[in-house]
């Protein structure tokens, strides 16, 4: 007997927390606000854990109907929840990491104004994200999709009095919107051709269909449009430009939304729609190409950045590219695996970076840091764990997931060695810039000014207002405990990949979608014996480990041993270096190509041309014309009897004329 899991509680609890904090938080003390936020997000986590305990593959997929919503003829869309292995994984990641970040934020934001507002938005984000994950139809997923975009906007622009923060929020929302447009069109196509947006109905309609020929057909279009949406939400080329700017928000926001959860919504959506993608090789290829290019591209930019949060932002974009690469070669479980480990170590990286920033009083420029490992040991060790994890060094978490993706990129039926090669080079660069960050921040001599003055006056992007307790100090325990927990997860989190345990766990979700011909192709392709395949896999694994270690070595060389070298290298590369440093001027390009003409067109054409000269003018002029006509006609009412008589005579003549004319015709 399938137990009633009451899935609806999981999103609703944070919503209640958001409502309480939002409506009454102004009168609460900080303690009460944090308690409310923690209780409700913690309750969601507890419930999710309980659901996980109740879950078994036998009851998957678990469907729960909550309320009916749209009934329009044949079309039905309801509020319903859907739980299978995939959403269970996402659920645990989101609630777990989310709760930890709630705890961390209490410490980080303690001195800030708008405390209750922050937690209200944070809980609101949890609600929307959980709605997205647990949705049983695309429409509900879209609600969550839009909602997390909204929460992201609210949180990025949390310090809205700062111009850069407000603009960053707007940029995020607008760029997201462009992606959402693609998503919407995909939804329309789904409604038109399948008459429904429910996962069950759509996927069972699609199951019997065979794979489409390259680059044509309905499923390919839907897949591509879904990818546009995912590119917007998950910051892939060409819609990634909002994520670096989003670092204007508080660091916990960057950790939660822009590292661990919201940006992974795109990956989740692609994985959820795998039934469609499996039958659209053209769309899959596009996904893989976009993922690979983004990973490479963002990594190159990450090498040159000097702001610690910006490095992590580009790193996020790059790692998301890996996840899309995984999905793009139909290795969805590998992509989701990397999503999970990435949530751990990237969340940890951001939180630890926040701790560093907090420690040195608001400074974010790595050139002003250094030698912090002795001063903030806890932060140092947890960040080390995360750095090793992201670099892909065994036995840390990132190694397993990244290696799985690289292997699938090479060996999958949709994969190719090109993907693998670019992936390995990117892994090398990832390791390099992460260790560069590590060395610059924690090793060498301290280059900043916090210790001598005891407090800093500038508050940087994404940093809280500096507070005056002097010197470099470790963060309070409320911030450290989540760091430690995430560090532990970064170490052991990848071990579920051992012996393909994780993949097997998710297999029922993804196996159900693969067409028989693809399976046959898969089987046919693996004509090599298992031993050969195992040897090749070990070889490739070795190469990726070598890349990671190579990156470490290069970073050690440039940023620890020979500190003078980076300058020389940068000089010799000259223009290339400047280009990369300025993010290849993509932002400027977009501004010139899209933003400036849009603003110009809007103000000249839409505002002056149409609004003022056509709409306003039409209204004003017609009123003016009416007034003038009446002004002229008014003179007929002169009060003079004889003029009335004159008009009567003229009118009578007119009537006679008319009647004669009628009579003649």
């Amino acid at each position, binding site marked *: 007997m399938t137990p009633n899991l009451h899935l609806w509680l999981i999103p609703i609890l944070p919503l209640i927390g958001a409502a309480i904090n939002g409506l009454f938080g102004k009168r609460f003390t900080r303690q009460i606000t944090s308690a409310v936020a923690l209780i409700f997000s913690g309750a969601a986590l507890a419930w999710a854990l309980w659901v996980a305990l109740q879950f078994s593959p036998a009851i998957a997929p678990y469907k729960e109907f909550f309320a009916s919503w749209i009934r329009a003829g044949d079309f039905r869309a309801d509020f319903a929840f859907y739980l299978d292995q995939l959403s269970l994984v996402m659920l645990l990641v989101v609630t777990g990491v989310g709760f930890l970040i709630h705890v961390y934020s209490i410490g980080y934001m303690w001195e800030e104004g708008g405390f209750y507002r922050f937690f209200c938005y944070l809980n609101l984000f949890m609600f929307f994200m959980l709605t997205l994950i647990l949705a049983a139809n695309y429409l509900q997923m879209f609600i969550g999709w839009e909602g997390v975009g909204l929460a992201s906007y609210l949180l990025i622009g949390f310090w809205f009095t700062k111009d850069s923060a407000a603009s960053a929020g707007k940029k995020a929302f607008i760029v997201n919107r462009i992606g959402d447009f693609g998503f919407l069109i995909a939804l329309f196509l789904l409604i038109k051709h399948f008459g429904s947006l429910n996962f069950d109905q759509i996927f069972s309609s699609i199951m019997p269909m065979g794979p489409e020929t390259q680059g044509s057909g309905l499923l390919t279009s839907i897949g591509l449009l879904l990818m546009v949406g995912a590119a917007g939400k998950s910051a892939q080329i060409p819609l990634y430009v909002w994520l670096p700017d989003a670092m204007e928000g508080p660091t916990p926001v960057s950790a939660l939304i822009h590292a661990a959860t919201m940006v992974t919504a795109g990956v989740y959506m692609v994985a959820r729609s795998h039934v469609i993608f499996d039958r659209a090789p053209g769309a899959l290829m596009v996904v893989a190409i976009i993922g690979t290019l983004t990973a490479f591209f963002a990594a190159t930019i990450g090498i040159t950045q000097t702001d610690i949060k910006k490095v992590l932002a580009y790193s996020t974009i790059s790692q998301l590219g890996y996840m899309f690469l995984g999905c793009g070669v139909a290795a969805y479980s590998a992509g989701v695996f990397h999503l999970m480990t990435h949530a751990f170590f990237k969340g940890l990286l951001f939180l630890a970076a926040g701790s560093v920033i907090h420690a040195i009083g608001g400074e974010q420029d790595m050139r002003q840091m250094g030698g912090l490992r002795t001063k903030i040991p806890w932060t140092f060790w947890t960040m080390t764990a995360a750095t090793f994890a992201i670099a892909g060094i065994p036995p840390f978490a990132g190694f397993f997931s990244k290696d799985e993706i690289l292997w699938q990129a090479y060996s999958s039926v949709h994969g190719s060695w090109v993907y693998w090669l670019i992936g390995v080079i990117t892994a090398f660069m990832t390791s390099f810039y992460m260790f560069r960050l590590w060395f610059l921040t924690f090793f060498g001599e301290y280059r900043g000014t916090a210790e001598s003055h005891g407090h800093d006056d500038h508050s940087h992007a994404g940093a809280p207002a500096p507070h005056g307790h002097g010197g470099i100090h470790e963060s309070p325990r409320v911030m450290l405990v989540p760091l430690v927990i995430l560090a532990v997860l970064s170490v052991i989190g990848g071990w579920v990949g051992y012996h393909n345990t994780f993949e097997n766990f998710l297999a029922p979700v993804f196996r159900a979608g693969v067409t028989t011909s693809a399976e046959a192709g898969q089987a046919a392709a693996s004509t090599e014996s298992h031993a050969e395949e195992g040897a090749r896999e070990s070889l490739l694994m070795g190469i990726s480990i070598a890349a990671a270690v190579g990156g470490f070595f290069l970073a050690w060389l440039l940023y620890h041993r020979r500190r003078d070298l980076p300058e020389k290298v940068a000089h010799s590369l000259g223009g290339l270096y400047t280009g990369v440093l300025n993010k290849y001027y993509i932002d400027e390009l977009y501004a010139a190509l899209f933003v400036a003409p849009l603003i110009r067109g809007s103000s000249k054409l839409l505002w002056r041309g149409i609004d003022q000269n056509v709409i306003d003018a039409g209204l004003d002029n017609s009123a003016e014309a009416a007034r003038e006509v009446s002004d002229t006609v*008014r003179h007929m*009412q*002169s*009060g*003079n*009897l*004889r003029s009335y*008589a*004159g008009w009567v*005579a003229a009118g009578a003549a007119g009537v006679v004329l008319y009647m004669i004319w009628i009579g003649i015709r």
Partner: protein
Amino acid sequence: MIPLSYYLVLSGILFACGVTGFLIKRNIISIFMSIELMLNGVNLSFVAFAAEWKALSGQIFVFFVMVVAAAEAAVGLAIIISVFRTRETLNVDQVNLLKL
């Protein structure tokens, strides 16, 4: 034997004179008299047609027109008298309280 049209032309002339008087004259009473002239012209036309078609109802109609003209003249003149009492003038151009 006179063609009907002669009578009609005469009637038309009388009517035209009546309308002209109505438009030109400035004394209220003169205007009223022009109205009577118009009515007379119409009466002539009625009787001419009645004679043409040998139908007596034309005469009856003239009879009624005269009665109505009499009633109208009575009331109209009474109004003129009361207007004169208030405005002290018989000039129609000065009875213009409705003017803006």
